[in-house]
C-alpha cells in the first residue's frame, strides 16, 4: 500500500487518524495545562483552556505538597526488585522452553497460558488470604512477589520466542569448545539477546510501576504507598489540588512513555505472542 497515490481514501483515513490522535492526546494536554495553573485558576467559570499565569513552580512544589519522592522510591524499589526476580526466573525458563527437552514441557507451556486467564481481580481474594497467612499484608514484599509472578508468563514466552530465533549452531559450537549449557546460555545466548532482554525487563518494570488494584488491597500504611496508590489517595482528600494532582500524574507517566517508545517494536509482538501459540 506504500506505493499508492494519494487518492480520496488516503486523505479520509489520514484525517480520521488526526481526529483520533487529537481526542487521545487532549486529556494529557489538558492535564499539562492544569498542572501549570495557580490554584486560583482551577475552578473558574467559564473554564479556560490555557492558564493565565503560568505556574511552572507547581512542578517544584508538588514534590513537597505530596510525598511524591517517597512514592516514587517505593515504586522503584518494588518494581525494580520484582523485575529482577522476574528476569532471574524467566531467562532459564524461556531458554528451557526454546532449547531443552524435559518431561512436562507441554504441560508447562499450557500452565503458563492458563495463568494469563486469571486476571489479578480474580486472584486478589486468594492472594490476600495467602499474604495474611504468611503475615505479609501491608509490606512491600507482598507486592514484589506478586508482581514478579504475575508478569512472569509474559516474560518467559517473550524470551523463549527470541531464543528460538537464535541459530542453534552457535551454541553447539560453544559447547563443543567445552562450554556447559549454562555457560553457553550466559556467554553466547544472552549477549545475543540484548534487545529482547531489555524489552522484557522494561515490560516487567512497567507492569509493576502501573499496577494499582493489588497495591490498593495490600498496602494500608501511607508511607508504603506505591506511586499509583499515592496519586489515588491524593484524590480522596477533602479538597483536591487538581493542579498538583495533574503534575504528579504527568510525572508518574513520563518515564513510562519514554520506556514505551524505546521498546515500541517489541511491544505488540510480545503481547500477542502468547495468544497466537
Amino acid at each position, binding site marked *: 500500500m506504500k506505493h499508492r497515490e494519494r487518492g480520496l481514501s488516503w486523505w479520509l483515513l489520514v484525517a480520521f487518524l488526526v481526529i483520533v490522535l487529537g481526542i487521545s492526546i487532549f486529556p494529557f494536554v489538558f492535564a499539562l495545562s492544569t498542572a501549570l495553573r495557580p490554584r486560583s485558576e482551577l475552578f473558574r467559570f467559564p473554564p479556560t483552556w490555557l492558564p493565565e499565569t503560568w505556574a511552572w513552580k507547581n512542578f517544584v512544589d508538588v514534590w513537597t505538597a505530596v510525598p511524591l519522592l517517597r512514592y516514587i522510591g517505593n515504586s522503584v524499589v518494588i518494581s525494580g526488585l520484582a523485575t529482577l526476580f522476574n528476569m532471574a526466573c524467566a531467562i532459564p525458563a524461556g531458554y528451557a*522452553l526454546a532449547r531443552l527437552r524435559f518431561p512436562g514441557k507441554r504441560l508447562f507451556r499450557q500452565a503458563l497460558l492458563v495463568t494469563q486467564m486469571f486476571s489479578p481481580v480474580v486472584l486478589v481474594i486468594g492472594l490476600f488470604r495467602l499474604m495474611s497467612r504468611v503475615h505479609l499484608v501491608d509490606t512491600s514484599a507482598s507486592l514484589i512477589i506478586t508482581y514478579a509472578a504475575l508478569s512472569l508468563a509474559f516474560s518467559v514466552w517473550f524470551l523463549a520466542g527470541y531464543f528460538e530465533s537464535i541459530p542453534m549452531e552457535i551454541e553447539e559450537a560453544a559447547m563443543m569448545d567445552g562450554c556447559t549449557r549454562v555457560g553457553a546460555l550466559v556467554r553466547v545466548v544472552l549477549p545475543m539477546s540484548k534487545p529482547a532482554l531489555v524489552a522484557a525487563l522494561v515490560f516487567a518494570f512497567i507492569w509493576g510501576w502501573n499496577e494499582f488494584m493489588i497495591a490498593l488491597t495490600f498496602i494500608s500504611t501511607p508511607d508504603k504507598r506505591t506511586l499509583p496508590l499515592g496519586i489515588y489517595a491524593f484524590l480522596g482528600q477533602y479538597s483536591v489540588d487538581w493542579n498538583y494532582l495533574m503534575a504528579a500524574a504527568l510525572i508518574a507517566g513520563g518515564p513510562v512513555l519514554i520506556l514505551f517508545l524505546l521498546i515500541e517494536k517489541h511491544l505488540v509482538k510480545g503481547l500477542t505472542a502468547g495468544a497466537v501459540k
Partner: protein
Amino acid sequence: MAVVGESDLRPGRSSRWRPSSLRSEPVVGLLFILPTVAFVVLIVFYPIVETALMSFSKVNSLAQREGFAGVANYRELFSDTVFLRILAQTVGWTVAVVGITTVVAIPVALALNFNFRGRRLARALLIVPWAASLMINAIIWRWILDGQYSIINGTLMKLHLIDQPIIWLGSEQTAWAAIILVGILVSIPFTSFSLLAGLQSVPSELYEAALVDGAGFWTSFWHITLPLIRPVLVVTTLLNVIYVFNSFPIPWVLTQGAPAYHTDILVTYLYKRAFTEGQFGPAAAMAMLTFLLLLAFSLGFSHVTRERTGVNAK
C-alpha cells in the same frame, strides 16, 4: 522434581553435572523451569484453589474459611438482583468498548501504515494513553468531567450546545457514556498497533497485483487486507475482551459504581463485596464465575474462529 532427573545420572560418574551431555537435559530443563513453576504455583494456582474453596465455604470478614457451605454463596449471588444487573452491565461494557475500539482502530492502523511525514510522531502520540496507566487516564478524565466547572461543560456551553452544566459522572446514563469513552480511548493504542503489525506483514505485491487488476482501495481492503489480517484481528479481540472485562481502575476511579451500583462492572463489584463489605464468600463465588466466564469465552472464541478458518481454507 530434581529427584526424577537424578536417577538419570549414571552411577560412578563425577557428581558434577555435565549439562552438555544429552542424558542430563531433562535435569537441566526441570531445574531451569523450577523457579518459574514455584512462583506460578504459589502466586497463581494456590490463590485460585483458595478462592475456589472459599466459594464453597462460610467465610468470615477476615477471609478465613469457617466450614463447608455447599453452594450457598453461589445461590446468594444468583438471587442478588444487583449482581445479575451488573453481570449484564459488564457484558454491555465489554461489547461496547471492544466493538467500538475495533471499528476505530482499523482505519487508524490503515492510516498509520501509509507513508506520510510525521508518521513516527503520530505513532509516538498514539502510544501516550497506553503508556499512562489506566489509573492515570481515569484520574485525568475525572478532572475533565469534574462537577459543574469542567472544561467539557464550559466548551459545550460556549458553543451553545447545552444551556446549563451537566454533572457527567452524576447520573447513570452520562456516567456510563463517560466510562465507555475512556475505556475506548485507552484500548485504541494497543488495538491499532497490533493491527498495524498485521498490516505490515501483508506482502505489498498483493496490492500491486490488485492495482493492476483495477481494484480500488476499498475493494482491495475487503478482499485482500481484511482476510489476511483476520488472525491478528481475532487474537487482538480476544485479548481486548479479557483486558476490558477485567478493567478495574476506570470505573473505580471515575464513579466507584455510583450511583447505587449502576456503573459497576463485575470486577469492581467483586472488589467491593470482598474488601469494603467483608463478604468474602459471595465475592469468591463471583471470582470463580468471572474466571469460568472468561475461560468459556476464550475456548468458545478460539473454537469458532478455528472452524471458520478451516472452512475458508477449503
